[in-house]
């Protein structure tokens, strides 16, 4: 539409101190392949942080523009590729009311919003007419952000501020995206994966529903409480096994290769270092080299139509040549230098990280073993 008609009003959204904020570069994955490598720099916000700014409306050609009111809203939504998104009918029902409004060019067009877990809005000005450019400050105080921003193959978690000028004819709207990081507090590591995964997911699902229910009510207190409760719930558990246990895996191909793969723990903050070792018990394989890679697995959709996508975030050679029985190969992988995705989970999708040990023999065959690790973001 906007191609044919130039909207009579230009909307510009500026966050407070936007220039001085921390930014993060996100590769835009537009449908046009030539822009694939383009990067978009977005300001970073964290959970509970207030989001404020100024909306400037400029009237084109000094014409008077009538409107039924100007509304600003902050939206967090989970978007999925259409093909997959169409599958979950249950969630569609919930989000159908808002999905239409997100069909704006700035969000990945291929993805449909399946869940709007955050939607707060208020009117900037009542219905009237705009005669000249006008600025409106806005502020969402102590905004709770449930999920981290995420941009994956099939799923995105997107946050944006949307300003809508409602008119009798088509509304004019403008969105501005921002990025959200959720930090785990330094002292608390998230719960161990195996023990608490189910619990966490149920929590998430519950919380997600709750947030979705309340989204239209503009009540943010409850959702923050829920979040806090979540953290509180986690705390005692994580404290109880504060001493990280080393993870030890026996890997082998019968009569051919037998190694022991050990690393210090299964949860890492993104700034941490993975330290471990590989102990060779038996090698009849002519190994060319051995790599450690970190695989980020995104699985989306509900159980019935689950789609998984792997992407290798790190590929790191740890051994050159073939080892022999009794050798120990050290592993040390600094994570902070890489752009990694922490583990995420909600009822629509989850992101998991796997440490994968890949052995390539001299004939080019690859042998690998994956084991899940949890990554989390710390300040």
């Amino acid at each position, binding site marked *: 539409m906007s191609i044919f008609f130039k909207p009579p009003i230009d909307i510009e959204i500026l966050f407070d101190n936007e220039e001085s904020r921390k930014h993060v570069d996100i590769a835009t994955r537009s449908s046009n392949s030539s822009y694939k490598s383009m990067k978009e720099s977005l300001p970073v916000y964290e959970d509970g942080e207030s989001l404020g700014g100024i909306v400037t409306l400029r009237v084109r050609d000094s014409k008077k523009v009538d409107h039924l009111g100007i509304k600003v809203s902050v939206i967090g939504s989970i978007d999925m590729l259409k093909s997959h998104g169409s599958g979950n009918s249950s969630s569609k029902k919930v989000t159908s009311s808002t999905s239409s409004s997100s069909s704006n060019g700035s969000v990945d067009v291929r993805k449909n919003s399946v869940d709007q877990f955050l939607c707060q809005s208020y009117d900037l000005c009542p219905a009237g007419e705009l005669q000249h450019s006008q600025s409106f400050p806005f502020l969402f105080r102590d905004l709770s952000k449930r999920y981290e921003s995420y941009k994956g193959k099939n799923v995105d978690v997107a946050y944006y501020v949307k300003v809508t000028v409602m008119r009798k004819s088509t509304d004019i709207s403008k969105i501005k995206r921002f990025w959200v990081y959720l930090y785990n507090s330094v002292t608390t590591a998230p719960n161990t994966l195996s023990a608490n995964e189910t619990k966490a997911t149920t929590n998430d699902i519950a919380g997600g529903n709750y947030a979705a229910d309340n989204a239209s009510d503009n009540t943010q207190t409850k959702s923050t409480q829920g979040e806090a409760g979540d953290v509180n719930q986690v705390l005692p558990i994580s404290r109880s096994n504060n001493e990280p246990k080393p993870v030890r895996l026996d890997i082998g191909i019968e009569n051919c290769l037998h190694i022991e793969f050990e690393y210090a723990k299964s949860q890492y903050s993104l700034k941490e270092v993975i330290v471990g070792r590989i102990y060779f018990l038996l090698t009849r394989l002519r190994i060319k080299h051995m790599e450690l890679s970190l695989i980020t697995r995104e699985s989306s959709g509900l159980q019935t139509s689950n789609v998984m996508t792997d992407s290798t975030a790190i590929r790191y*050679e*740890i051994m*050159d*040549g073939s080892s022999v029985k009794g050798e120990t190969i050290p592993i040390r992988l*600094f994570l902070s230098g890489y752009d990694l995705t922490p583990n995420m989970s909600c009822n629509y999708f989850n992101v998991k990280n796997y440490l994968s040990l890949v052995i390539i023999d001299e004939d080019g065959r690859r042998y690998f073993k994956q084991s899940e690790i949890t990554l989390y973001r710390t300040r």
Partner: protein
Amino acid sequence: MAYADSPENAIAVIKQRTALMNRCLSQHKLMESLQHTSIMLTELRNPNLSPKKYYELYVIIFDSLTNLSTYLIENHPQNHHLADLYELVQYTGNVVPRLYLMITVGTSYLTFNEAPKKEILKDMIEMCRGVQNPIRGLFLRYYLSQRTKELLPEDDPSFNSQFIMNNFIEMNKLWVRLQHQGPLRERETRTRERKELQILVGSQLVRLSQIIDDNFQMYKQDILPTILEQVIQCRDLVSQEYLLDVICQVFADEFHLKTLDTLLQTTLHLNPDVSINKIVLTLVDRLNDYVTRQLEDDPNATSTNAYLDMDVFGTFWDYLTVLNHERPDLSLQQFIPLVESVIVLSLKWYPNNFDNLNKLFELVLQKTKDYGQKNISLESEHLFLVLLSFQNSKLQLTSSTTAPPNSPVTSKKHFIFQLISQCQAYKNILALQSISLQKKVVNEIIDILMDREVEEMADNDSESKLHPPGHSAYLVIEDKLQVQRLLSICEPLIISRSGPPANVASSDTNIDEVFFNRHDEEESWILDPIQEKLAHLIHWIMNTTSRKQTMKNKIQFSLEAQLEILLLIKSSFIKGGINVKYTFPAIITNFWKLMRKCRMIQEYLLKKRPDNKTLLSHYSNLLKQMFKFVSRCINDIFNSCNNSCTDLILKLNLQCAILADQLQLNEISYDFFSQAFTIFEESLSDSKTQLQALIYIAQSLQKTRSLYKEAYYDSLIVRCTLHGSKLLKKQDQCRAVYLCSHLWWATEISNIGEEEGITDNFYRDGKRVLECLQRSLRVADSIMDNEQSCELMVEILNRCLYYFIHGDESETHISIKYINGLIELIKTNLKSLKLEDNSASMITNSISDLHITGENNVKTSSNADDGSVITDKESNVAIGSDGTYIQLNTLNGSSTLIHGVVATASGSKLLHQLKYIPIHHFQRTCEYIESQREVDDRFKVIYV
């Protein structure tokens, strides 16, 4: 990241990236330069490089990284922090470039004192495990070692040594592993590559030795056990050999001395294929160096030095015993060099201890027996040769005597002599060897013993020091024993030809045996170097013993002792069978020497103590005894050689006769003469030899003086002349008889105080002289060949002139009339000779020609004195005293070519010339007479 496809490209890439890196560094763009470095280092990931090529790349890269390191150090706190960089470079995706960068940054950081040195070092060496490829891993660790060389913490040597040892152990593992990589058929290539890389591993031990310095405790307790454990554990041939060698080389020899046990124990646990002897030899070398150094430092305090307290030989001995016990599989080829090295050691440490050597030889003996004599291969035979003849260059036996008197460097000659006389086992081993080998060894030994005889004389002093003076009485007996041993060693040579050849079948090795056999059959007098050497040895022994005794002033005793030794020699050489013809003359000669010595003693006693009859009679008995021995020797030769050497026996008999005559033992002399005649009569059949023998007998007889009693002389000379007149050929008869005429005309021997004109009891009988001459003239006249006849007549004329000059006419019965008559006879005969020739004028011409040239020739060729000389443009022919023709080479008058049958062989031209021989001979005689007229008036009545 990919690497270049060829080494050339790789070098190009490296150079390019180095340039880029340096440019970025100059612009302070560290990140970019690190990226370039990383790309450059990718070349070191190439798996297709040979160690050499890899090393080339490594060297270039090492330089580049040095640049980088310099930059990093210079800009450390201002532009970057090395601790951060250390983390940063670890993001490098590939392990090889990552580690090179880590080490570069880490070691740069180490230069600063605030750096956590130990942590960094530990971390680097730990992370190096990531490279498990042998070649890449070795170079990486070598890089680590090179970079950290100067940067190890100074205050903690044990940490440093642990660090280096850790690196060493890992390197060794990688190095060993290289052997087992790749396809089996490339095994050889692998081994070669490993040898190329060995220096990288060895460098770690060198580093260790530098770190240790003189900290023996640490060496003994920590380092050595760890290293040796590693060496044993790797069970790899190349590695064990190389590493033990390096260990022996790089660490201080004092350390080796103190840890000898451990080191030797280690070799027991090595891979069975490792050549232990190399290692032991290296060790021995080091220990010997130690001794040398100690001696140089303090040459006088050798006995008090601490090192001598240690029983080094004992340690080695125990080791050998254990080794022999535990490794019965060890072949002789391996075992012998091992023993040899211990011998080297023993000689250096205990130069005078032959017990040790005996022990060692016994061990070898045992081993050889265990091993089975039959199984001795050619290689081990060679080893035995080297072992037994001490050809090993490591044996510091010099034949020079310039070394200081108390230095352990002994003369090889002495050493061997001592060895032979003191080590029974040595002889036993030798006896186990094959005959040809024994011969070789003994040959070698004799060569050594007789080497530089002159220096031996000078060496006598030092030798006497070996034996304290008080032992002199005992020394003689000891000497006899020594001689006995020496002779028993030489036995294979002595009997070398009579014994059945051991293994003629194996063709090429026994060439000399075959050779010996062949000319054994022929029984000819071919020069036999071995037997000649033995004869030499006999003289050497006798000389040596006589020298010793004269020094001790024990002549009385020594004569008998020498006799004993000589008898000993005789009894052992008699085993040689036919060989005695080579060796017994030497023994007999020594008997003669002893006889002369005996006579000297007698004379001495006669002067000083004429009253001591018993002693005198003792010596005269001794003398007679010795003649008996000689006689027996000659008989032995005769018995063992049959007729092949009658000439020799004849001459020996005559020589003995002369000696006996000179010692006034006329009975004995007569016996020997009669023996000579027996030989002549019974065994000499060849007419030419007979003439020679007769001349020889006549010569001997003419010089005798003691035989006049009891008419021995008369009967002998008559017999001699009789034999002469009975010779086969007439010219021989003629010559023999006129020569025998001298037997009745004794001439002065100035040595025993005779003088012509003063001494008046010469045995002279002119009548018999004339009789002889007449008889020979008769024979000459009866010869059919005119030339021969004339020639002989001229010779008789010369003889007559001799007696004419030397005696009065009344004594000699050679009158002027007789001489003139003879001259007339010759002239007549010559005329008839000329008539035979058709062209008489030609002869006169040639005579006048020859008259001039002939004179010149007489002067130049003085050696043809008693023959006539005929000259031609090309050649001179003369006739010898025994009737053979001699062709004289005109080019150099001194050398003569003997043509026994020149007349027949050289054709008619030469035959034609023969006629002129008597003519010229006569001419010269006439000239002589004419010239004598000037000094002797009697000649004036002789008409020419």
